[in-house]
């Protein structure tokens, strides 16, 4: 960029600003300096309390405005940005503004060039100041100081620590909002006082000048803690918008660590409390049958399906428990009538167990599936769902009172025991149940259907062994009786 011929290029100007946020003063000075064609590197801008450029020896003040000189050009975009950026605490801000104004004279459209370093810098300053103002609007917390009418009545006082010189610029916001209230905002950079009619400025304050509490804060903290949803912890999102530096002046922020720590246990409690809420145990199998078709205590009950009740004699010595009804069972409304049921029937016959003498049921009463086109694909029930449905199987068992329960598959075992066991560890030996009956665990017949070759042969052998052992125990129990 070619520089304008500089009349004052050899002189150095030191400008002392009367206040850190005095944009109008800067504008007047800048206008005169541009007209006198003083280049940016020949000026030092010093705000109150600032040291400025150590090597700035010049003592030239601001040249007087000359009447014949060309007018200084600045577009609205620049003025708006500059007015806000001037409030930033960056000591270089006035130099930056002048540099931009200087360049604008040559290139009036340069503010649109967002990739330019100076333009980006002023936008950055403007953004920081706007954010600081916005946070001031949000995080100022007034505390009530009660006073008699004689002293002017109640006053609301706040202590706030802004990052930039934004106090005066935001007086209007609080005045418009609380026009009919007496209030003061105290900051380390100065204070504001509104009495309902006039605004007064005061000196810098300290935190101890502000009241230390307000009786409403208990209610506010209660609100803050209650409106927070512990099921959705997003601490990062909170910190991004409400950085820790603001916390010390916000009464509710003291609760945050506690709320975060308690969130997980609160959610767990919410889920636990919500899970089980059953009425009294039904006393007959027919009552269970009726109740399960209305059961919506887990999401499986919401699918398009029918509850499938267990079947068999009410005094059966053997209770056989599967996982859940499948597609066929759901349609026919009877347990173990699909492919796995047929396989089970074959193996029971081989082992010499009479299915019609056993009570056959499932750990979960509804068919859980996902729809794939026209087909409903089986889904294993979740542990939570099995635990929820356990209520029904226990009710059945309380009525049938079998001597021996055969649980087929991990879901059935969980339904019986309330915890997950490994089939390979649990099979082959009885597990004593609390009521004196015994539980045998084996694989689910549908597992056999999914295997091939040697693996299948091995599992079929184990399955038959289990059934034979059950048969043997049943005989022993029958003899004892």
């Amino acid at each position, binding site marked *: 960029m070619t520089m304008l011929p500089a009349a004052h290029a050899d002189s150095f100007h030191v400008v002392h600003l009367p206040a850190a946020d005095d944009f109008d003063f800067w504008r007047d000075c800048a206008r005169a300096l541009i007209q006198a064609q003083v280049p940016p590197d020949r000026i030092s801008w010093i705000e109150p309390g600032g040291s400025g450029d150590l090597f700035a020896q010049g003592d030239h003040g601001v040249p007087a405005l000359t009447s014949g000189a060309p007018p200084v050009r600045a577009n609205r975009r620049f003025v708006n940005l500059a007015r806000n950026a001037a409030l930033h605490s960056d000591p270089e801000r006035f130099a930056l503004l002048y540099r931009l104004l200087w360049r604008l004279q040559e290139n009036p*459209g*340069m503010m*649109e*060039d*967002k*990739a330019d370093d100076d333009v*980006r810098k002023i936008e950055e300053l403007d953004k920081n100041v706007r954010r600081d103002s*916005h946070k001031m609007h*949000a*995080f100022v917390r*007034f*505390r009530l100081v009660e006073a008699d009418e004689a002293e002017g009545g109640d006053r609301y006082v706040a202590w706030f620590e802004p990052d930039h010189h934004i106090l005066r610029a935001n007086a209007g*916001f609080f*005045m*418009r*909002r*609380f*026009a*009919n*209230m007496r209030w003061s905002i105290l900051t380390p950079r100065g204070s504001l006082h509104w009495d309902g009619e006039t605004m007064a400025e005061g000196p810098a304050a300290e935190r101890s000048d502000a009241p230390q509490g307000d*009786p*409403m804060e*208990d*209610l*506010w903290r*209660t*609100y803050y*803690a*209650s*409106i*927070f*949803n512990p*099921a*959705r*912890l*997003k601490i990062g*999102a*909170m910190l991004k*918008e*409400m950085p820790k530096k603001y916390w010390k002046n*916000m009464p*509710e922020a003291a609760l*945050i660590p506690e709320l975060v720590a308690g*969130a*997980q246990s609160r*959610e767990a409690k*919410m*889920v636990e*409390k*919500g*899970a089980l*809420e059953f009425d009294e145990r039904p006393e007959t199998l027919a009552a269970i049958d009726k109740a399960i078709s209305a059961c*919506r*205590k*887990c*999401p499986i009950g*919401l699918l398009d399906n029918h509850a499938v009740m267990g079947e068999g004699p009410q005094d059966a010595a053997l209770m056989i428990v599967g996982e859940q009804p499948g597609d066929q069972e759901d349609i026919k409304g009877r347990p173990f009538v699909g492919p796995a049921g047929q396989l089970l029937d074959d193996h029971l016959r081989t082992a010499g167990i009479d299915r019609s003498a056993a009570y056959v049921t499932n750990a979960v009463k509804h068919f859980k599936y996902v729809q794939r086109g026209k087909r409903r694909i089986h889904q294993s029930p*979740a542990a*939570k769902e099995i635990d*929820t449905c356990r209520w029904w199987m226990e009710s059945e068992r309380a009525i049938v009172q079998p001597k021996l329960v055969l649980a087929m598959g991990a879901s059935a075992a969980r339904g019986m025991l309330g915890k997950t066991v490994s089939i390979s560890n649990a099979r082959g030996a009885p597990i004593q149940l609390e009521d004196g009956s015994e539980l045998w665990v084996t694989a689910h017949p549908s597992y056999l259907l999914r295997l091939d070759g040697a693996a299948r042969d091995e599992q079929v052998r184990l399955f038959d062994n289990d059934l034979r052992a059950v048969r043997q125990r049943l005989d022993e129990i029958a003899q004892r009786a």
Partner: protein
Amino acid sequence: MASASTLQKLEILADAAKYDASCASSGTSKRNSVGGKGIGSTEGMGICHAYAPDGRCISLLKILLTNYCVFDCHYCINRKSSNVARARFTPQEVVDLTLAFYRRNYIEGLFLSSGIVKSSNHTMEQLVEVARILREEHDFRGYIHLKTIPEADAEIVHQAGLYADRVSINVELPTDSGLTRLAPDKNSGQIEGAMGKVTSDIAELKDARKKFKHAPRYAPAGQSTQMIVGADTATDSDIVGKASRLYDSFKLRRVYYSAFSPIPDASAVLPLKRPPLIREHRLYQSDWLMRFYGYKPAEVMQATEADGNLPLDIDPKLAWALKFREQFPVDVNRATKEQLLRVPGLGVKAVHKILASRRHRTLRLDDVARLTLSITKVRPFICTVDWRPLLLTDRADLRTMLAPKTEQLELFSA
């Protein structure tokens, strides 16, 4: 000042209100308390006065007038059959609380909802009464959002709009079948009928204001609604479709999504597992695409995967771009605004900056990098004078390259 019973009631009734996602206080008419008798101002932009650890903004005092309810909606903590603690505020108590909070600069205003007590009309009258006392007796000029009860008489609902900045009616669930199943007392026809009535009231009084200076303002911040995500089987496609129909037919300001979260004493028809929070986030992103990026609902649906849901690992805009790679790369020095808005990683602001800057210089990759947050995300989809992605957009593993590397951990997985 705060009696124990007020504390307890506030605890119960704020707790019960937290499942409403909206806390917006923006977009209403500009006004302030200068020249009035009371307090309050609205200056266009909403203000979040605090943030809770769930990342949500606290802008309004969001409470229920009461959580007693005669309805039995399964997803709702306040349903008749739930045994949560119950409480009830009188309208005057809510007014006092709102003013006390407002004076201390805790809030922008009030968001009042309620369980249904006695009758829908009675409840609606009580809600309107709170707004009336605030506006007429205290000259309160802050923000008021009233939840409207679709079953109440049109005349009372109309009153609500005269006092409130925003009124809202929740559609609750994206599908009619979900509503029938989970909210047996509600009826989608009635809900949409009530929304339609509010829409026409807003339009009518807006029109009247053009002719008569003193015609009353009616819900200047418009109406919004909320849908619960993850409580029924609706896919993201269904939800986006429903939302866009609602935007079109009722001129809604916003459709809020609330990921169903396990609620204490939940009805067991609900899944106990929550849908990943990220799903709600993706839906909001798709909402943004429709509202600010010029995507049509059908185009958002194109970004969904085979199961009708938006991918969780990448945002919907990137998902769309990966599916329609023939549209890329886009030349940042020549492309239209519409084309630039489709580039993953370029937001509305960045696009405006590019459009403004390129009048002054021919953009190089470095220039674009200065105008965006992450050039790596943008790079495969653009060309500049000194950059051409060559085969990048044809790479099969582009998705893996661009998807965020870290996975969201399931905090509460068992």
